[in-house]
């Protein structure tokens, strides 16, 4: 069966500190991978998506970056966090030509 893992579940970081959120997928190969951010009480904003190792597309210019070092690993990073980076970060995967997206449990990030 397919599963998606995200960690950590919650994170409190000071402004200006670095960030690394990791997402891994099991039970499927060559998935499409996505990072979303959801600000409090708001909708889901697509940040990055990837269709293969090393292939990253950015949807929103910002101080975040993403990398896909392995087929089923997706990492969201920042060198210096801003207050506006606070939110609920969700990783999701989808199989090519299969349209359902499967979401990880999310990471709640608070930048102080």
């Amino acid at each position, binding site marked *: 069966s397919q599963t998606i893992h995200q960690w950590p579940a919650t994170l409190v970081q000071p402004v200006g500190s670095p960030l690394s959120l990791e997402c891994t997928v099991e039970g499927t190969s060559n998935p*499409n991978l*996505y990072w*979303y951010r959801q600000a409090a009480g*708001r*909708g*889901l*904003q*697509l940040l990055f*998506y990837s*269709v293969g190792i090393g292939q990253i*597309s950015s*949807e929103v210019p910002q101080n975040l970056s993403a990398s896909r070092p392995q087929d089923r690993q997706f990492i969201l990073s920042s060198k210096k966090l801003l207050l506006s980076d606070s939110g609920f970060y*969700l990783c999701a995967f*989808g*199989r*090519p*030509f*299969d*349209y*359902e*997206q*499967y*979401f*990880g*449990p*999310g990471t709640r990030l608070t930048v102080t």
Partner: protein
Amino acid sequence: QQPVQSPQAVILREGEDAVINCSSSKALYSVHWYRQKHGEAPVFLMILLKGGEQKGHDKISASFNEKKQQSSLYLTASQLSYSGTYFCGTLKSNTGNQFYFGTGTSLTVIP
């Protein structure tokens, strides 16, 4: 790129019906509907592909009008468990790469 949903919020009594609309300014390949409970990840409800089809899932159904680039989600005889935020999601092509969620509709069902 983000689809617009209406209404933004709705409060229902158990047993009442609701309609949530989703409109896009871009041509669509498919429309997806998700429900998100507070503090949790979104959960997939259904997908509608091009062809103007209508689908149903228990007492929740949806339609997709590709010419108007609109989709509607119909909740009939609402239950307390229907409470949450509903998002439509849209794909521009069948490769599933660029997926955009709508602005969301908060639905609260009260006894």
